[in-house]
């Protein structure tokens, strides 16, 4: 794996972990935007350099595809959730487990990943050497999904998890990129729509109060 790619993955993993601990919805959305921006940044720069040096049609198409992909995950998706937050509320809720326990779990996961990741990386084909780091980011994102009671933060976690697959998605055929992005946006809109409807019914977006309501 190239050093720049490794660096961008490490930075985005760091933002994912920060997102998992963020108190308010607004801050979690901010970390989502940062995570998405950093994970696709290296590829975007590569495509830009290729476009500048090559100046051919294929490079332009490839750059546009990567840019749209990057822009959708770093700006459009966070904005949809942000819009949902404006329409409902920006809450700071207590996670289902306290921060100390969550931190301990994250450290344990990282250690386990270091052990198993190094074991499995020998077994994986060269083309899939980013898979262990992707899996770690996926695990961090799952913290937001599992331990939070704020549905918008859960949506942020879902997006972070999807973004963690970005290095793999980048390998998919360009013709499929618009469909994958379209679906990503569609699922976010549906998610925000459901949260807004629930907010209208229960008067709160706190999941624990929905059942009582």
């Amino acid at each position, binding site marked *: 794996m190239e050093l720049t790619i490794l660096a961008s993955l490490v930075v985005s993993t760091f933002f994912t972990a920060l997102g998992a601990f963020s108190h308010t919805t607004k801050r979690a959305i901010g970390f989502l935007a940062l995570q998405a921006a950093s994970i696709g940044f290296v590829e975007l720069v590569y495509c830009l350099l290729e476009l500048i040096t090559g100046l051919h049609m294929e490079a332009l198409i490839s750059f546009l595809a990567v840019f749209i992909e990057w822009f959708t995950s770093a700006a459009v998706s966070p904005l949809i959730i942000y819009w949902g937050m404006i329409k409902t509320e920006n809450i700071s809720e207590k996670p289902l487990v306290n921060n100390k326990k969550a931190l301990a779990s994250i450290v344990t996961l990282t250690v386990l990943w270091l052990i198993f990741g190094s074991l499995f990386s020998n077994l*994986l084909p060269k083309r899939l050497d980013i*898979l262990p780091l992707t899996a770690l980011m996926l695990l961090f994102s799952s913290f937001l999904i599992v331990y939070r009671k704020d549905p918008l933060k859960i949506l942020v976690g879902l997006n972070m998890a999807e973004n963690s697959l970005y290095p*793999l*998605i980048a390998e998919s055929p360009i013709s499929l990129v618009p469909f994958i992005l379209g679906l990503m946006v*569609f699922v976010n809109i549906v998610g925000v*729509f*459901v949260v807004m*409807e629930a907010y209208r019914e229960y008067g709160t977006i706190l999941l624990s109060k*929905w059942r009582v309501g």
Partner: protein
Amino acid sequence: MYSLLPLLSLVAPSFIGFLCLFTYPFKFLEAFFRRIEKLALLLGTSLTLLIVMTMVPYILSGEALETPIFSLKVDSTNMAGAVGIVLIFFLASLYNVEAERGGRLKPSMYNFFVLLFLTCMLGLLFSYDIFGIFLLVEMTIGVSIVLVVHNPTKISPEASFKYLIITAVSALFVLLGVLTTFISINSSSISAIMDNSEFFRENSRLAMFIVACFIVGLGADIGLVPFHGWVPDILPGSPPTVNGFFTAEPIAFILALYKLINPFYVIYPSQTIILLLFCIGLICVIFGVLSAFSQKDFLRMFAYLTIEEFGHMILPFGLFTSFGLTAGQFYLVNSSLMKAGLVLCLGSVLINTKTSDMDSLGGLIGKMDETAWSYIVCSLSIAGVPPLSGFYAKWLLYSAVYDFLSPLVGIVFSLLTVLFLICMSIVSLAVLVRSFHQIFLGQPARGLNDLKNVPWEMWLPTLIIAIITILLGIQPNALFNLIKQP
């Protein structure tokens, strides 16, 4: 054989769906559309039924219809499933004429999503492209969540959010499996997996990882234990008609799962995959039946029985034998049809009495006789009572399990397994008969004396399903001929 029919069967419902959606922004078209909304949906589903039925003679003559440019293929492995899906959608849209009373979505939007749902189901069946399957899985999830939240009740947003999270996470696993496969073989065609068999034989752990991703991803979408959390909430949270449409979902998802993992099993025939699917199937059966037994709400009872049925459905496919595939397809189509019959009957009771609590119901057979008879026929069929089609489906299932197990673990253990499955079916029959007794027999409960029958548009689809199960019981070859392996 090259044919545009598979593509046409996807284009027709989506085109009518888009036509419905076209009226959405125009206020002056709204009044007009309200008059034809139910008919437009019925037109979409009946047209699709017609197109799918025109493919049947080709499949019966042993041909396979392909639209290679979109990687679509219809053959004996998916034709019966397609017929089942379009039939369920047609009957549920007939039921929709009277049962749909409006909700959170405008009628044009509702029609669009229902028809898009049908397109996704058929696309999942016909597509032989791994990316196509992923996109359709994700779209199906999005559409079904919108359809659940359409219900104007208080519980539907919570149920749909739970559904969204579980299925969206599961879609990530499908995506992970799809991307890993694509990066490994540089092709998105399912047939290319077989062409790269050497690579997966060398990287058997990677093949197992991909299979695990598909099982977890699609297993959660189907509602298999331990990813079943959304099933008992979704059924009470959805409109009755949408529950009818949902009964077609397992046909598409289970056949898609089989389509994705079968090549890996052929390349690397690991017993772990069989054991995993077999155990999941058995756990679903046990958990579903036992949980259904204690339910007082008939929709929750039905939800748990649905989980039990998922277990029965997955068992024969998990054997990866030719007979297992045949038995699985027969069981899948028959069970989905029976579930559609049952859930539409329960929907009629809910709409008519405004309650799903079985303790506050009773004596409805005198008021809703067609619904009652359809309910008991479908119940007996799904439990495998002869001479109904369910008996034949269960017989095939037990034979496939016995044939597979007996050379491996001996006659005694195989017989015990089959006996255990029969016992589970008897328990599910008891649950269904008890629910029939509580809802339809005895003295009418207080407040239900002045109840009128539901309109014919609501009981006719259930009656048709009951007649189908009797006819298929007498002549199972009508369905079996569509499934026969080439």
